[in-house]
């Protein structure tokens, strides 16, 4: 009767627990390439002055899903001095806030150290912060901040003098409190002003949800754990139009964004995924299909995640989507996507096939070898400057109480890199990339940027109940690099949504200026291109308002600043870098 003439168990998504995982085993690892990897990471957070732990729930148990999710982190240049500063989001604890539980702004002292300027900047705030987006919404030349919360979201206007002002109410963004998650600035109507997209995770009331282990869904491999997201009411997304006078108008319904219900939305990335010159919005969703809002060019969107192939796994299984990286791993000039998932599942690599269609090439690309960890923030960055973007992932469990009964699932787990082999495949690296990669933490948000201005890509990581990690990249070898900073004039000043395609040695690599990526985080606005052995690159820029510009034969080894309509307005060689 019950001859199990069905797909073997390993191929079916598990529905018996609180989150989606396909329950797959890793694919066999191939032989190591043996090629040297010229990026090397060491954690310099302590010596840099990043010593305050990021409070987010308790380190040894999580009674509620709220405590498990962690937060984003940001690299930004808030004072326009050309050096990356750091903004660290913080949570708190359910019963009482411990001292020091606040978001923090660290100013770059330009000597490898940072100073905590949170109080001076007016950014001290206690609460369950979640995501951040950085952008100059009023085009006054200074980057502003929007932070999501379980609670009231906050818009901080950068006053240009080292301080910020909470202008949430004045901006019309005071709304009934929800658990807001991913957020991104996006000029969806190409009017030159940054609009705001906000995703929400789930409806959460700690007084009403079941306690740990109280329900079949609140168990993981036989261990009682916190409940959710499955079983808890899902949420929707919102879109706010920048009216140009410091206020925002809720256009959720008129834009079509509000039609999509029933998602556990997390990281939100605005980019032009179908190459039609208009920004679309992709939201990684946890245990529900991820969504892609395709821009219709008329201030409305159509949700097409399933149709484009980036909502589910290759075979149509839901996954616990958390972090998103957007970049061009195969150098075809189109933006590909990497999304991270739960343990016993793989990260996914969606290859952009053009015309807004994607294929899941995870297994073919070699990413199926890793299924041990819960994966969060992710980036597609060229760490060794060989001209091929690599993948970096941070990890960390959500069930600290499980590790005593299930030691094969520790709470703190290592980072890892998938280095790009240049033929469509990746190989996984751990200690080969330096001791900071194998260090174990419960990490969530991650940001990528060159904090020491030496011509490579460093990494900033949010760790739960520990100080952040600041992974300084000490690249060796002879590969060249180029960084591009864009300033909009007719387009939004932050140039969010601008596309740069660098052509070098017969290859072309596309990158876009993003308002959010990784896991609820913001990376260096300066786009980094590794060029390999090439000493120059031709740059094609497509500005957010659709205008195009070409800048040929840009020499490697520098940061060029390109202003819309004016070409290169500044170039800067980095002192400690290799060209």
């Amino acid at each position, binding site marked *: *009767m*019950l*001859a*199990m*003439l*069905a*797909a*073997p*168990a*390993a*191929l079916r998504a598990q*529905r*018996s627990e609180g989150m989606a995982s396909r*329950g*797959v*085993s*890793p*694919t*066999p690892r191939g032989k190591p390439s043996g090629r040297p990897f010229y990026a090397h990471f060491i954690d310099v957070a302590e010596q840099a002055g990043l010593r305050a732990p990021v409070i987010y729930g308790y380190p040894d148990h999580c009674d509620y899903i709220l405590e498990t999710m962690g937060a984003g982190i940001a690299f930004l240049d808030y004072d326009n001095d050309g050096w990356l500063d750091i903004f660290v989001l913080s949570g708190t604890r359910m019963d009482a806030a411990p001292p020091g539980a606040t978001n923090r702004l660290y100013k770059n002292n330009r000597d490898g150290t940072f100073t905590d300027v949170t109080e001076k900047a007016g950014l001290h705030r206690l609460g369950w912060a979640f995501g951040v987006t950085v952008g100059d919404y009023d085009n006054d030349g200074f980057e502003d901040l929007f932070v999501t919360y*379980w*609670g009231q979201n906050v818009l901080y206007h950068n006053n240009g003098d080292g301080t910020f002002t909470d202008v949430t109410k004045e901006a019309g963004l005071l709304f*009934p*409190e*929800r658990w807001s998650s991913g957020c991104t600035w996006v000029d969806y109507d190409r009017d030159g002003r940054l609009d705001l997209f906000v995703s929400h995770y789930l*409806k959460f*009331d700690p*007084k*009403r*949800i*079941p306690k740990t282990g109280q*329900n*079949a*869904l609140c168990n993981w*491999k*036989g261990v009682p754990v916190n*409940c959710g997201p*499955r*079983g*808890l*009411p*899902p949420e929707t997304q919102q879109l706010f139009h920048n009216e140009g006078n410091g206020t925002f108008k809720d256009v959720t319904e008129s834009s079509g964004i509000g039609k999509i219900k*029933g998602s556990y939305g997390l990281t939100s990335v605005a980019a032009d995924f179908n190459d039609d010159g208009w920004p679309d919005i992709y939201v990684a969703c946890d245990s*529900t*299909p991820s969504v892609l809002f395709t821009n219709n060019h008329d201030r409305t969107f159509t949700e097409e995640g*399933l*149709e484009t*192939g980036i909502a*589910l796994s290759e*075979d*149509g*299984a*839901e996954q616990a989507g958390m972090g998103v990286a957007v970049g061009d791993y195969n150098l075809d000039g189109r933006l590909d996507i990497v999304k991270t998932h739960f343990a016993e599942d793989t990260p996914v690599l969606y290859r952009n096939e053009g015309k807004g269609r994607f294929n899941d090439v995870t*297994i*073919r690309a070699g990413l199926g070898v890793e299924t041990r960890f819960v994966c969060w923030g992710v980036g597609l960055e060229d760490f060794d400057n060989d001209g091929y973007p690599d993948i970096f992932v941070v990890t960390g469990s959500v069930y600290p109480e499980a590790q005593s009964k299930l030691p094969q699932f520790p709470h703190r787990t290592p980072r890892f890199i998938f280095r790009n082999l240049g033929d469509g495949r990746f190989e996984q690296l751990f200690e080969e990339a330096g001791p900071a990669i194998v260090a174990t933490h419960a990490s969530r948000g991650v940001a990528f940027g060159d904090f020491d201005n030496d011509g490579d890509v460093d990494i900033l990581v949010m760790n739960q109940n520990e100080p952040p990690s600041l992974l300084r990249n000490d690249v060796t070898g002879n590969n060249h690099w180029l960084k591009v900073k864009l300033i909009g004039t007719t387009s939004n000043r932050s140039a969010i949504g601008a596309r740069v395609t660098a052509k070098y040695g017969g290859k072309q690599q596309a990158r876009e200026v993003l308002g959010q990526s990784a896991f609820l985080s913001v990376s260096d606005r300066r786009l980094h291109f590794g060029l390999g052995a090439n000493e120059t690159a031709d740059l094609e820029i497509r500005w957010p308002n659709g205008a195009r510009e070409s800048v040929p034969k840009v020499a490697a080894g520098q940061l060029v600043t390109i202003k819309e309509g004016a070409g290169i307005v500044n170039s800067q060689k980095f002192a400690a870098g290799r060209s």
Partner: protein
Amino acid sequence: MAGMKCIACLCLCTFVLCAAEPAKEIFDRAMRDLAAADYQSAERGFQAVLREEPRNVAALSNLGVIYSRTGRADEAITVYRRALRLSPNDKAILLNLGLVYLRQEDHARALPLLARVVALDPQHLQARQLLAVCRAYLGQLEPAIRDFEALHAAAPHDENILFLLGFVYLKNHDSEKATAIFEQMFEAAGPVRAEFLRGKAFYEAALFAPAEESFLQVLRLDPAFPGVHLELGKVYISLRRNDGAVRELELVLKENPGDADASYFLGALLVQEGLYVEGIPYLERAKSAKPDSWAPYFYLGKAKLRMEHPADAVALLQRAVKLSPDDATAYYLLGQALEACGRKSEARQAMNRVRDLGARARESITFDDGRVAGTR
């Protein structure tokens, strides 16, 4: 599952009183044909009866039996449902329809039917067993355990019940109780068969490493034990040890080239690993042997889609979704295939069905009556 051979074999002989003489004769003749396994003649006969008497429950039910036996599950479902509208408390029809759904692995649809049988006849052993199985597969472990424990108390040496009770204990992460039950199974079934059943219980509970150990032990005790290579092949698929899986399944097919299960699993594995050309012949054999099983159509459809034959994929996946109308993954691939054929509006319909099925699945697992959500 082992020991639970349940075939829809209940023939209803209720006689239609107000039929004209010829209808009675046709009915009787169809019954004789059915008993002789001449299904084509029997089918013609019962359909003729229904043309005269569309509300003839016996004819509808016997057609259901014929369709079930000849692998036409969707037609069986249609006639059984018609029969139930006319005779909603007919235990035999309820049970047979439940069995059809169980063969489709549609435990959610089978459960209420079987529950109704048990409500009408609390001593109906087969329905009680099947109901408990449905509950186990639907994650309702505590009621399933209660049911099986009650059945075990009534028949402590029944190896089927021992197997099922061991399985639900494993699924409930209660290894101590499972071990105790397996020890009883050794006494009831003998060491080799007991080890085999234990391996199957581990497999059904997704505990693949201990399942492998059990089946390897069976091979040590009796290298020719029937079914062990197939089960080991399935375990290796789940453990992603493809070489081992291929080896075991090929052993089965060497012994019996027509084995539908081995053909299916080997074909599906090859397709899943991207070996589409190699996998297709096996899946074709599985499809011929069990034309109403959705899974060969699904994997054949996937293979054709990946080989860029979307029109072929559409036909296969349409059959898959007809046989398994609640499988979102089949609709997803169908949507992709329709999109590739340029049939965009149908593709969108398929994707909308994926969305609906997902939403329905989420609604079915909310914690309570909706009062969980609140604002701070």
